């Protein structure tokens, strides 16, 4: 390998999800006075967690919006070298259309990151072994904000549900492995570092556009040099774009819909059919076992099963429906030019993301929600703080969202946006379950997941943060 990863310059969140640190919060900050903020940053940078260490007590990472980067005083010509998606942000009218952020998900209703909420310049991400330790870390940093011209806009808390998300399914089973990092990844699931990190070759063997500075702008040599050989200082290297979306999950409407769709002829609930239908929509059982491998019942033995392709075993979707959530966010070998081929897998690898999300809001037992008296009382906000990393927002996160998740025509379908997280047409979506002798289908699917906030961030390398703080 020509270019090994500079783990000490990469923020830890790119390398690991800090699974052992069960507590986490995200602090959204506004910069009111750039000079003190940069001073603060220059101290903070030494306490950030890098990819080289495996934290056991706490971890800290930081990312910036484009507004934040601008406030730090980078030259306009350099600012303009960030990707267009990052510069434009997540809330332009066209972006809302392509991300499905319409109606109740429209940025106008967002709690943060929207047009009518306070500007967000940075997000400070804190992780700790437990809530007690987390509040210690938080309190220590929170004290420093005001004196350094920083305003805490919002503190987003998280909750540890084990490996489950609020609908009750094992989440985060399939993650791409970064080439050159771990040896364990299968080739199907291993992608070039440049898909996640700027300043490294991507799946095309090319470098993704990023801010490159004439060496004169970095006389101290704070920044790494462009490994593509231009001789310029590379502000992007070892950094990544962080997509942050607060996804609100309507757990009650989800299970009520499923309950209604699977009732016995006598009107009573059918828990087995209900769970199976939910799993068909997800594409994995609650344990995580893929329907491809075990279509009829859950099998916890297969909870972490991830080494499979779809087309050979299940070309028509009889095991795992074509429109199931996991079969569309990572279609593996399902798609053109030739399903089941290496070419199909190669195309798929250009559309991967590394997910780093955590749940928020109190957990709830679906069965309690289905009982009538509790139904009225339970109305708490819960969901997923969806965080993902990628080097090219338009080819990775936005492509997956627009062309796979929200596309009702995905893989030859007609009206089937993603049954779990998709945006459906106003009179509701369709979910087709391929079957013999003929398909079943659900119509009038409501939207179970809405967007309550979000922004695109740049998660710089450590040296890049040092450079930004020195401006």
């Amino acid at each position, binding site marked *: 390998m020509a270019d090994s990863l500079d783990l000490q310059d990469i923020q830890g969140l790119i390398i690991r999800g800090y699974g052992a640190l069960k507590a986490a919060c995200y602090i959204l900050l506004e910069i009111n006075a750039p000079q003190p903020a940069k001073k603060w940053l220059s101290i903070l940078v030494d306490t950030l967690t890098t990819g080289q260490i495996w934290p056991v007590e706490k971890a800290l990472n930081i990312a910036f919006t484009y507004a934040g980067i601008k406030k730090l005083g980078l030259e306009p010509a350099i600012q303009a070298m960030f990707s267009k998606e990052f510069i434009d942000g997540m809330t*332009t009218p*066209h972006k809302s259309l392509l991300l499905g952020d319409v109606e109740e998900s429209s940025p106008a209703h967002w709690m943060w990151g929207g047009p009518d909420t306070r500007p967000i310049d940075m997000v400070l991400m804190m992780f700790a072994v437990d809530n007690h330790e987390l509040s210690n870390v938080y309190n220590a940093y929170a004290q420093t904000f005001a004196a350094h011209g920083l305003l805490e806009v919002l503190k987003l808390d998280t909750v540890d549900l084990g490996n489950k998300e609020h609908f009750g399914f094992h989440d985060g089973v399939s993650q791409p492995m970064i080439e050159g990092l771990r040896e364990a990844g299968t080739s199907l699931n291993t992608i070039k570092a440049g898909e996640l990190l700027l300043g490294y070759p991507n799946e095309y063997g090319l470098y993704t556009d990023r801010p490159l500075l004439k060496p004169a702008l970095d006389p101290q040599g704070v920044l790494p040099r462009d490994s593509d050989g231009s001789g310029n200082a590379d502000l992007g290297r070892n950094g990544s774009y962080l997509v942050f979306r607060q996804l609100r999950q309507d757990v009650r409407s989800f299970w009520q819909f499923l309950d209604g769709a699977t009732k016995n002829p006598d009107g009573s609930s059918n828990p087995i059919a209900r769970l199976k239908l939910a799993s068909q929509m997800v594409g994995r059982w609650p344990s995580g076992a893929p329907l491809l491998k075990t279509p009829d019942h859950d099998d916890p033995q297969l909870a972490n099963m991830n080494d499979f392709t779809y087309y050979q075993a299940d070309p028509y979707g009889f095991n795992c429906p074509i429109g199931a959530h996991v079969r569309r966010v990572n279609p593996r070998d399902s798609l053109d030019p030739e399903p089941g081929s290496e070419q199909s897998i190669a195309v798929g690898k250009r559309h991967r993301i590394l997910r780093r999300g955590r749940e928020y809001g109190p957990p709830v037992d679906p069965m309690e929600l289905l009982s009538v008296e509790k139904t009225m009382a339970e109305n708490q906000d819960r969901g997923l703080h969806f965080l993902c990393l990628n080097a090219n927002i338009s080819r990775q996160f936005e*492509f997956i969202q*627009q*062309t796979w998740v929200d596309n009702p025509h995905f893989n030859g379908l007609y009206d089937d946006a993603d049954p779990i997280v998709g945006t459906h047409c106003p009179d509701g979506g369709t979910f087709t379950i391929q079957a013999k*002798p*003929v398909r079943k*289908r659900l119509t009038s699917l409501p939207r179970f997941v809405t967007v309550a906030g979000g922004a695109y961030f740049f998660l710089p390398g450590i040296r890049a943060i040092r450079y930004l703080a020195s401006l």
Partner: protein
Amino acid sequence: MTHQVALTIITRIKPGETEDIKQLLKAMGNNAAQNDLIPFGKISTVHFARFVMLDESIDLHGTVISPRLVFMAECDAPLHRLFNELADMAGDGLDKIYSHCEGYPIGSALTSARRLAYLQANMVKVQAFYVNTVGRMVQQIRQESQLRNAIQDFLDHAQQDWSGHSSLEVRTKILAYIRSERALSWASTPPAQPGLVFELKETLHMVGMPLLLLILLPILILALPIWLLLLRIYELNDAASDIKPGDAHVRELENLEDFVAQNQFNAVGYIKPGWFRRLTVQCILMAVDYGTRHIFNKENLAGVKTIHFARWVVIDELRRVIFASNYDGSLESYMDDFIDKVAWGLNAVFSNGVGYPKTSWLIFNGAKDEHAFKDYIRVHQIPSQVWYSAYDHLTALNIANNAKIRAGLYRNLSETEAEEWLRLL
């Protein structure tokens, strides 16, 4: 006759009247199907239609090319049916638009025949035209969509649970339902096939072109090394492209995208100076024309199955080329398909254009340079002021699948074949 034609009409806009047309088209573009000027939704033969304005431009020698209005439509043959419908339904609208263009008849000279004569006189030859599936008419596409929807509703409502039935039993019930529906009576016969004359012409072209090449082979063998050498010299001397698209330009384009299942795309660019590139682009477009007519004429353009129509038109005395297409899904996925699946084909044509990412030996590299290619696309893309789709909720894959559902109605199937047919639903 059921084949499809690419109509292109290019007219010169009168000096100073560009803004007037823009305003007219803007209002029209808000509702392309049912506007007052040309209600495309009422015209039975049009698959897609668009108005595109070419702003004033300065060519590579400094000569000014005045603003043009380009009308493009993909429609079912024969073309005179389209013209007749236009004259019947949109005479006033045509007057309002084309009175801003040079040479349009005015006053007492304005008769229906003169209007059409004007349009026909400004028709421009299309060098290459890709049709997703030759012969599939607007009416057929709409009817087959209706058929599919009817079967789906029948399956949903006739019975909650079909399991336990054999494939043949289910199929028999579906067929009985179709026969019982008066609105689906058209489905009792297969769709019309392209006309004999058209088929004959296509066959002659398919056989004739290779024969012609065979005859010219001795000359070609001599010319090829020279051509390759020149090509390589030109390629090595081509400047690398590093122009980024402007923010306002991209915003204008974005705001027209992603409302329905399909999107429109137009790009216009100058052919590189000198006879060599002009000759090359014409030869390549002849090859593209051959490929689209005889090889890629059913649901698949070299691995890309999301394009309904595409055309290449050389204009301004071999100075510029317009490329226009109707495709499914997002521009990002369209561009990624280009890069991943047909980079060679794009390179062969577009590397003769100014500003294209550097190629080697005509077909290598080029579009494979992801960022340079995507920037090139946006820099050269121009908006459609008006864009109409006759079936904006259907992707090319949906249309192909609907056609298979219909085609499966006309013969007796075995249990296995019935199973395959039911998988289309």
